[in-house]
């Protein structure tokens, strides 16, 4: 009986030590993204990739920082694209879960919803999101917590500028934009008005009401102006309807900087050309890049599926799989898991060679290689690889 009690006491002590030690050696990382909802296009893949990376790192025994082993714990509730939900979730992460590294958001409206609160915690955590609006906040006083995990459209290394150059090489003279009348739509308008003007391409702006499904009227008006290319919307939620209705009205050439190839492939017999910015064309890269092939296989095994989300995977270039590994690498280089300023400085010092070649510029904005995918009638695809300087 006494022996049993001793064994029990020792076991209890060991369990308590294990739990305590475990709690000390866990780095919590958060994610503020829409995993469901009409705007989940950008958040869903991010969430999928992060889960995989966390699992891989933990299964490999974690990582060592300043002689101490750590594992990761992912806190990733679903914002559904709702700024209020995101704010509640971020508060819980920072105040209850004591998270110091938060990935996301990709949506500007969600970022605007959490920005005020996040700013109050500058210096206490890092927010690494792809939202367009984050670009305008980088480098401002009190915004040391901000890192943007997406290529910026404008500037010499901007993917938008390089995309416009690609169109210019095709001899395009006139582009008509059809954009949602909301915050991001107007940001896109401001950026591309200048980019097209700089390239000497005529640029016509058209807007549609959020929630629209029938674009016939505005598309008919655009078709009457005979543009060479249509630059439509920014999410697949509107692109499928726009591309279908545009082809019915004789607009068969598209150029877009956000959204997947899905609308082109669904309408492959009706389009003439569909030029899209795709961070990586996984269908091709899977065969030519061993790292991508390995990732695709790992994804299928992890999610126990035969289908790989080829249309969503390119969005993993923002706050996703590579970024978890980058963060771990930065913590190792910084020699700390708690000092967010040191970790941020370390993040800005190296180029990570993962699924993408990723680096951050001095303002904390990501620069990575991307593909321009050109889908032509019948579904024939040509890919141009671009490595911004």
């Amino acid at each position, binding site marked *: 009986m006494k022996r049993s009690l001793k064994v029990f006491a020792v076991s209890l002590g060991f369990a308590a030590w294990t739990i305590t030690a475990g709690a000390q050696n866990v780095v919590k990382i958060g994610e503020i993204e829409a995993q469901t909802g009409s705007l989940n296009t950008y958040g869903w893949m991010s969430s999928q990739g992060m889960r995989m990376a966390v699992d891989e790192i933990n299964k490999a025994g974690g990582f060592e920082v300043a002689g101490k082993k750590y594992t990761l714990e992912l806190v990733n509730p679903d914002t559904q694209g709702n700024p209020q939900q995101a704010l509640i979730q971020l508060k819980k992460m920072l105040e209850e879960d004591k998270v110091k590294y938060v990935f996301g958001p990709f949506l500007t409206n969600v970022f605007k919803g959490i920005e005020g609160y996040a700013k109050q915690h500058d210096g206490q955590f890092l927010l690494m999101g792809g939202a367009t609006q984050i670009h305008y906040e980088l480098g401002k006083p009190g915004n040391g917590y901000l890192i943007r995990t997406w290529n910026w459209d404008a500037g010499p290394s901007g993917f938008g500028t390089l995309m416009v150059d690609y169109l210019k090489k095709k001899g395009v003279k006139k582009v008509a934009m059809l954009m949602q009348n909301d915050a991001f739509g107007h940001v896109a308008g401001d950026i591309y008005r200048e980019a097209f003007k700089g390239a000497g391409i005529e640029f016509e702006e058209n807007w549609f009401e959020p*929630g629209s499904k029938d674009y016939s009227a505005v598309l008919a*008006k655009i078709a*009457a102006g005979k543009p060479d290319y249509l630059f439509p919307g920014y999410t697949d939620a509107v692109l499928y309807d726009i591309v279908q209705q545009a082809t019915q009205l004789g607009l068969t050439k598209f150029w877009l900087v956000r959204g997947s190839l899905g609308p082109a492939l669904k309408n492959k017999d009706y389009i003439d050309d569909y030029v899209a910015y795709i961070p990586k064309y996984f269908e091709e890269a899977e065969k030519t890049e061993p790292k991508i092939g390995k990732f695709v296989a790992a994804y299928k095994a992890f999610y126990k599926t035969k289908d790989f989300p080829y249309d969503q995977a390119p969005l993993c270039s923002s706050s996703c799989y590579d970024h978890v590994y980058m963060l771990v690498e930065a913590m190792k280089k910084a020699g700390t898991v708690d000092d967010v300023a040191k970790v941020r400085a370390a993040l800005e010092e190296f180029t990570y060679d993962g699924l993408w070649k990723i680096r951050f510029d001095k303002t904390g904005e990501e620069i990575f290689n991307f593909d321009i995918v050109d889908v032509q009638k019948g579904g024939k695809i040509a890919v141009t690889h671009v490595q911004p300087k």
Partner: protein
Amino acid sequence: MLQLVVGQLLNGIIVGTLYAIIALGVTLTFGITGIVNFALGAFMMLGAYVTWYLTDGIGIPYPLAVALAVIFIALFGLVVDQALFRFTRNNLINGLIVSIGLISVIVAVVLMIWTTTPQNMHYVLPGVFRIGGVIVPRMKACVFVVLLLVILFTYGALTRTWAGRAAYAYAQNPEAAALMGVRTNVLQAGVAAYSAALAGLGGALYASLYSITPEIGSGYILKGVEAAILAGIGSVMGSFAGGIIIGVAEGVGSIFLPSAYNDAYGLVFLVLILLLKPAGLFAANR
């Protein structure tokens, strides 16, 4: 420009019939049960999802999927009428509250099953008709013909059958109709189921034209109610005209005015009509 205006006139008429089918459901339900059933928009959305699922999920041919979806939504409408709306007859506020609650439940269930990721059905009837320089997508023309026939059938049934005349009689004077042998409970349940079926049909046809999301019903019920009010609630052919007026106002308005606010153009038209004819355009012509 003329080509553009004629094209949008036709497009407005076609899109307007989708508003009209909902407006017809609104006007029938209000006339017989005394409530404005906002859940008809949710029934429409459900009809769209059921059709998409039967067609692209199970592989049932589209026409059969439409028929099955309409039957399903009619039965669903009947069940919720007997379970919920039966207790709100002629009580506008209670009916409104129940319908709003029902919308929340239906949308939540759709969200749970299919999430809010937009769903796109395969093209049922691709291609366009070209009339002169005017382009009309074949599927849109087909949807217009089907909805027009259903609206005409409804009008004919209401004016030329005993049940239809009983419905008119009940709408005008419930007590007198009951005294004349009209079985009011059966009539009310039948109209509720038929209105749901109309909404389900609207949704089933909608799925062949546009991508579907759980919130599509909210926009269409507002357009449907707008169309019914514009016509003057109670007028069957007026609902049809009301839907078309709103559809045309949006389509043609988007040519001459900023397209970013096209939902407002139908509303402006509604306000103008109500200022001139407060009871609606066709209020006297039932």
